[in-house]
């Protein structure tokens, strides 16, 4: 029972910890990428190195059609992004203006559900929505008018005032304090950039195919004019952060596995020592050591198997619970995540590979531990062991 419990605990700890680790990377990517930039974007070739509206592009129907024709791709979202000063009463702040196709953007990042006050925008609206952090800073509410002042296409002045239709709570606190969404047509008018966009966000189902989708797009578009970029290329700092975190995570998981290995070995050692007399009796009355070793190995294997199955069954609901109800971080940890634009929550991820990999590692650990009783039986001095 002790051995089974120790293996069960090992499985629970290992899977639980890995699920949290992978969940935290997932939330980083999902918050910063999936729920904002998208996994692949197409830009005018120079745009990413010099993100000014002048490096935007006029929507090319042929380009859109070519991209949409690729099998994995479900559609595209057009965006026109630039910066402006926003002012209300005595408050002014530099903001990020995002001209979006409201319905498509809602489908991608679920903006409508994030509205905390007022209403969501429609394609032909002449109004805007803004992040709750920004609204608070500017002391502006739904129905008020926000003055925007910036630079339009080719140096034209961009100045206008727009009514606030809604306030949206963006998971990334950095964005929440600086973003303004407006319908794409309104943004094109504001920046005096007819049919202009800065990014074509490519929509597809499986983020695991990011590289393939990007390569497929680059293979069919005119790469002297446009370029498809993966989120890894667009946000290398996020990759660096994940890699850095993973290195720490590997050390942590290695320490955990060591603790698990010592725990499992300790219980097997204890069990073997306790049963030495029993083993000696069996050998003394005529059981071959090899047979005893085989039975002992089979017995340990069965106990480990029961422990592993119990561990998996126990872990699934726990991991699922924290996937649905992530732990909300507070304090310095939360602040440091928010500085990177990452939502300060720690969800788990219910991933078959995590279960499989960790189960295999535990099997290897318990398999190695199971060798000890075999050695013990092989080297057993029957007389000494009978004395106990």
């Amino acid at each position, binding site marked *: 029972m002790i051995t089974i419990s120790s293996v069960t605990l090992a499985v629970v700890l290992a899977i639980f910890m890995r699920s949290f680790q992978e969940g935290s990377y997932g939330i980083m990517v999902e918050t910063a990428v999936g729920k904002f930039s998208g996994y692949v974007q197409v830009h005018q070739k120079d745009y990413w190195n010099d993100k000014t509206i002048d490096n935007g592009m006029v929507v090319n129907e042929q380009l859109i059609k070519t991209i949409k024709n690729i099998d994995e791709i479900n559609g595209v979202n057009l965006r026109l992004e630039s910066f402006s000063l926003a002012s209300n009463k005595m408050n002014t702040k530099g903001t990020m203006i995002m001209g979006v196709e409201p319905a498509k953007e809602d489908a991608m990042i679920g903006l409508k559900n994030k509205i905390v006050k007022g209403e969501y925008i429609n394609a032909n609206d002449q109004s805007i929505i803004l992040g709750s952090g920004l609204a608070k800073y500017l002391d502006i509410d739904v129905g008020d008018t926000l003055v925007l002042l910036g630079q339009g296409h080719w140096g034209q002045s961009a100045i206008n005032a727009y009514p606030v239709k809604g306030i949206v709570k963006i998971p990334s606190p950095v964005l929440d304090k600086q973003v303004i969404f407006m319908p794409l047509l309104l943004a094109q008018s504001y920046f005096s950039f007819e049919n202009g966009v800065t990014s074509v966000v490519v929509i597809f189902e499986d983020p695991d195919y990011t590289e393939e989708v990007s390569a497929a797009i680059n293979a069919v578009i005119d790469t002297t004019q446009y370029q498809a970029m993966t989120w890894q290329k667009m946000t290398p700092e996020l990759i660096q952060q994940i890699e850095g975190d993973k290195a720490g995570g590997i050390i942590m998981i290695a320490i955990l596995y060591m603790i698990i290995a010592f725990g499992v070995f300790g219980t097997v050692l204890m069990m073997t020592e306790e049963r030495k*007399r029993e083993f000696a009796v069996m050998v003394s009355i005529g059981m071959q050591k090899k047979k005893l070793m085989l039975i002992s190995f089979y017995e340990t294997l069965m106990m480990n198997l029961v422990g592993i199955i119990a561990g998996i069954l126990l872990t699934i609901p726990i991991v699922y619970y924290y996937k649905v109800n992530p732990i909300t971080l507070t304090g310095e940890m939360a602040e440091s995540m928010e500085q990177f634009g990452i939502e300060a929550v720690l969800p788990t991820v219910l991933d078959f590979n995590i279960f499989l990999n960790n189960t295999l590692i535990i099997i290897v650990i318990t398999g190695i531990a199971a060798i000890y009783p075999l050695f013990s039986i092989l080297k057993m001095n029957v007389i000494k062991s*009978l004395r106990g």
Partner: protein
Amino acid sequence: MKTVIEIKNLQKTYTETAVEVKAVNGVSLIFEEGEFTAIVGPSGCGKTTLLNLLGGLDAPTSGQVIIDGIDISTLSSRKIIDFRMKNIGFVFQAYNLIPVLTAKENAEFIMQLQNKSKVERETRIAELFKAIGIEGKEDIRPSRLSGGQQQRVAVARALASKPKFILADEPTANLDSVATSELLDIMRKLNEEENITFIFATHDQRVIDRARRVVYLEDGVVTKDELKE
């Protein structure tokens, strides 16, 4: 009488400690079928070592242990285990029953090693449990049996495989006088009625009183070999 065991100039020397200890020092004995023999002597005289050598649990430094014409001291460890299973029954001082098995499972364990059929096992165990007076205790685990009952199960286990002889090392040391008397009655009855050979290592006077032959051992040497009847 048929010779069951013959030991010739048997020696066992322990060299693990700084001082060399000759636990058995040139013992030669013959044990015949149907004997009820006690090997006696003070603590440390070599009784248990001699018994271990007879049972092939330990290897002699020199000399021979011949059972049914086979010198078991020359057998490989694998063959000697097999030999024990087929020919020798053991009864230990501390009973040494397997705690997770019931009384019946403990007794029939050796028969399973011998690949005896279920029917054969059931019949033999029923017969033995009746003979040693623990009928109805078949499904009880050792921890719930008294010391005397546990030792009876140990005797049943030793007899289950129909061995050529039983080696009993201080079998009564942990028993009270009533349990000792009952156990010795059973063993003596089995000896007399079924001609089973018993060899005891003991310093219990009650066992010595019941034995028909008493071998006295001192400092690993036989000092007296007495036939009482």
